[in-house]
């Protein structure tokens, strides 16, 4: 129930390789299209909210908090109960209140991967080198009738994300994320649209995600977004006992 966006750093790859030139070019164009490195780096926190539609049927209220360098908290609300998943850069936790439990519980390292990977405001590729990722250009591939540029991002933890850039505007239109969860590959395909600017940077306001295998579908529609809202670190940290107010409002 969290969203993902991606920006691409300007750092060059292997000098001299033909695909590196293409990759550098794409990365630069993507960054420019999003609004430029300076504006992107100036965003230290980001709050988004809107709706989360699950399986074309269930609609929940949605809110997400992100804080640099890599904290994230995603909330989904139903009938006054709010589920929480959060990552503070070290560990992940959740509150799943819909069946009566409102105390926070730790998430396993594997289960929190997909959330943690989405924590950076700039996206998985921004500062990719510092994060230990690898980048590769795989040519173009059809995305629902759009011949998109395909980039392979191998994250430090071994997970892989295939990022597809629109050929005209160089913005992300699809990311296929493969997470290794307890030895099993979990694949999620996210389609991005409705780009709008927040503090001068384009973010997708529509994110449709499908889980391969089980066919689970969800769609996030962002209605409000605000950059640099003050956020306490406690928002992301595992709550101390008796400090679990986030669950019930």
């Amino acid at each position, binding site marked *: 129930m969290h969203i993902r966006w991606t920006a691409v750093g300007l750092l060059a790859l292997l000098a001299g390789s033909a695909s590196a030139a293409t990759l550098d070019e794409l990365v630069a164009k993507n960054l420019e299209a999003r609004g430029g490195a300076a504006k992107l780096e100036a965003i230290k926190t980001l709050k988004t909210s809107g709706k989360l539609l699950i399986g074309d049927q*269930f*609609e929940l209220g949605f809110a997400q908090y992100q804080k640099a360098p890599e904290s994230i908290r995603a909330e989904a609300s139903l*009938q006054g109960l709010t589920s929480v998943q959060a990552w503070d850069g070290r560990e992940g936790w959740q509150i799943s209140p*819909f069946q009566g439990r409102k105390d926070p519980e730790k998430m396993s390292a594997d289960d929190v991967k997909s959330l943690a990977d989405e924590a950076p405001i700039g996206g998985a590729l921004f500062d990719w080198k510092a994060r230990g990722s690898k980048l590769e250009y795989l040519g173009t591939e059809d995305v*629902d*009738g759009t011949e998109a540029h395909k980039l392979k991002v191998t994250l430090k933890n071994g997970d892989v994300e295939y990022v597809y850039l629109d050929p005209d505007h160089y913005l992300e239109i699809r990311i296929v994320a493969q997470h290794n969860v307890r030895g099993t590959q979990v694949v999620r395909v996210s*389609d991005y649209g*409705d780009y*709008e600017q927040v503090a001068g940077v384009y973010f997708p306001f529509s994110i449709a995600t499908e889980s391969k295998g089980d066919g689970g579908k969800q769609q996030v529609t962002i209605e409000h977004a605000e950059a640099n809202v003050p956020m306490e670190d406690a928002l992301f940290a595992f709550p101390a006992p008796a400090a679990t107010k986030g669950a019930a409002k």
Partner: protein
Amino acid sequence: MSTHSMKKGMVGGGLLAAAAFGVAVAAPAAPEARFDAGVVSGLGARNIGSAAMSGRVSALAAVPGKDGKTTLFVGAASGGVWKSDDGGTTFKPVFDKQPVQSIGAIALDPSNPQNVWVGTGEPWTRNSVSIGNGIYKSGDGGETWSYLGLPESERVAKILIDPRDGNTVYACVPGKLWSDSAERGLYKTRDGGKSWNLVLKGKNLSTGCASIGFDPKNPDVLFAGLWDFRRKGWSFRSGGESPDAPSGSGLFRTADGGASWTEVTDAANKGFPSKPYGRIAVAVAPSDANVVYALVESTDSALYRSDDGGKTWDKRDKSQMMVWRPFYFANLIVDPKNPDRLFKPDLGLIQSLDGGKSFANVGGGTHGDHHDIWIDPTDTQHVISGDDGGLWQSFDGGNKWWKQNNLPISQFYHVSVDQADPFRVYGGLQDNSSWVGDSAYPGGVTNSRWENMYGGDGFWMFEDPADPAYLYAEYQGGSIARINRHTHEIRFVQPMAEYKEKLRWNWNTPIALSPNEKGAIYIGSQFLFRSNDHGQSWQRISPDLTTNDPQKQKQEESGGVTVDNSAAEMHTTIYSISESPKQAGLIWVGTDDGNVQLTRDGGKSWSNLTRNLKGVPEHSWVSWVQAGAFEPGTAFVAFDRHTFGDMAPYIYATRDYGQSWTALVGPKDAKGMRGYVHVIRQDPVKPDVLYAGTEFGLWISIDGGREWAQFKGGEMPAVAVRDLAFQNRDASLALATHGRGIWIVDDLTPLRALDAKALASEAAFLQAKPVQQRINAFGGWSEGDASFSGPNPPAGADIVYYQKSRHLFGKLKLEVLDSKGEVVDTIPASVRRGINRVNWSMRAKPPRVPPAAQVAFNSTQGPRVPPGTYTVRMTKGKDVYETKLDVGLDRRIAYGTADRQAQYDTALRVRDLFGRMSDLVHKINAVRAQADERAGKLGGNDALRKPLLALKDKVDTIRKKIVATKEGGAITGEERLREHMDTLYGAITIYEGKPTDYQLARVDTLQRELGDVEQEFAKFQSGDLAQANASLRAAKLEEIAVPAAAPEEASAARGGREEERRNPFERD
């Protein structure tokens, strides 16, 4: 949706659009309208399988994982490559984006199993075999692929990778089945596939490589079996033209990695059989390179074994299953640890434990017709086999077998549909009988929703329209039967030969229903037969419509070294029949030897129209004739010339009863279409919409055949589409694929609405079929993760629109308005190029439910809106588009609109009660919070503090009558007014007819109980609270205020069923 969608310029959304485009992102010039795969594929398609019968597996490769899980690659004969990284519990297709789907060989690099090599084009050269286009390699375990050439190889039998160097690879290429070619033999690359050298070639243009084996410890020693073979439409030979005719087949050995070769002969190698040969299979025992096995097809076919690395040979087993159909079964798999244990896949799977002296049938419960085996080197009792019925695993050394129920690689030849609701599909498959399946079922179309009705290889199959309790099905050679769908009683009704006559029935004998007379049925040998009494009697209504060329009628001599006359080569037969729906007795017939024939008088007289067809060579196989759906003089004809080695598409149309023909598609102008054509159909509603199924997929034209676009909806791969069936009531299309089962396109209406004007527009609504509110239904059961289940059509209403380009900037907003113009829902839009389908759940807002210990699950969804006409409004940038959406009831329901309205009104009544309840709880909570807050500000000894806390407790006792408050996540069984209301709401909304009397009475009861607590609170408000406020006032403290109502939730839940197959009332 209405036929007219309108665009309102400059309304709304202007700010967004300005924000989107007012920045430095340079928008390119407006794209030209294109008609291509991106436009049509958004129609979508669902694959309903089935994996019950599955389909032919031609190649296997696997590697045991360090984590104990086997990574397995399965090559389907014509359905791509499937990967499992959990030993077969789950599979995913990994080759779907490649242009061919027939798999001949898979090999994993021993030094890095992430390097996967795939040779395309099956080597088991049966009559229905598909084609490949060379070799592919993945460096990341099958996620992405590079094409490595050998484009003219057509098929690849085996790939071997040097364990010392993953860039040194051998590819054993049999080459073209249907024509001469120099591009065949044993190829070798030393640079990872960048370049290939032909290191061993045959002595003629029909001899290629069919088998290789090497010593993994010394891979420079390698044996290769060359094979001389050729198939024609009317014959096949493995080896020479007859058992003792010269043949290019032979066994060769190299000791220097292919630089030089020595032929293994009876003269030089004691014990080896005499020439001529047919197909040879060779294998070197991995654990002892001196042990070499060779199955040699000859006039005395047998297994041979060498114990000295191929110098001398000893004749071993020659049982029936060793030598049965060597062209189809020529593979030997030796245990990686035990040189005396080997498998020979065949009609039955046979295994030897004594070095090939004796074999036993160990196929057990498998389907049969095995082609490849993998033996787990870490546990040689674990054996995996691929056969004509899919994939099987044995854990006891190959005696008892588990079936994989998760490979929907079924090879349908044909498909038909019926009038059931949901409609059923019917069709026959390669070696897998004739089946009927549901196109939809609550919980999904699982394997259990398919039923086998006959036997043999299946082809055409229909429900008898005159008596739906009966079906027509056939097996090879026109063996038509009429089958009782309930009892499975079979009655053979095939027409039989007259005095000293031979009827020639094609392998895939055409059966056709009359569109004009219910129950009338046609079947063709060289003659056309018609029955209108369920096959009790047949009228022969034509002379021999074929060329009756005796040179093409020598099937008893077919097979080459080993005779093989299975009806697969039967020729000079009728292959396609189509009666005009516009004129009874006007029948088009196509034959496999090139004739297009027409009768306009029910068969009294026939015209051979073949000469009028210009540009197609004589005697080309007529794969399809299709009478026009609108005019009696119109017809479409497809030719399939792949049996002559010509893989190009040919489609012709006539409007004058076949006097003149126009080539819609041909080799000189294929219009982007790839592959030989199996089927051409005209849309039953819009004449200019045409559908063509080829060996590489489905192509669609919306302008009468001038332009074509490949359909890739539902991520359908480039699999052969061999038949198409329209379900006109549902505007649906069923696709018979030969390799990936049945696919359903649920609504063709938007395609019919797509015209040049729509294509040129930036965006436009497209009409969809009338919306039904389908019954909320529950069915199916958990089958585990190792079972295929096909998806159902979306449960809601389809909203369909076209976009010239992908939507990227600013909101693309979809709203639904009721007849009063009020917005009832806002739906996330789809942003792709071309046709977009968005599903609207048709639900009104859900109740406002007061917070409690748990979610009230039934109330997470709103009631479905009443039937009627709704308006859909799309806002895209500054432009606003509108269309009408007619919502009706499920045609299967027994109740009428009045009952439906009663149900909706009752649901709204309960929803209102929930709203009142929410307001009440909100007021209570406000009082609780304020009392708490005021008390907190007071000192511990303040006289007011205690009464305030008591006040809080008192009001909370009212709350506890309304909502369950026990937290902790257990099954508390705590039910208060809210929980009772949720149960009632669920009962009322699950069934959309009239609520029961008890349900209606229960609404009254709960309304009364709610009224009681409301009164109690009112009393509290005027009593205790007023007193407390007086005290607060006196103490100059802020009074406790009671809000008027609860605010709307920021985002109210709108919900539906989480798990369709689960009973919604059982949550334990």
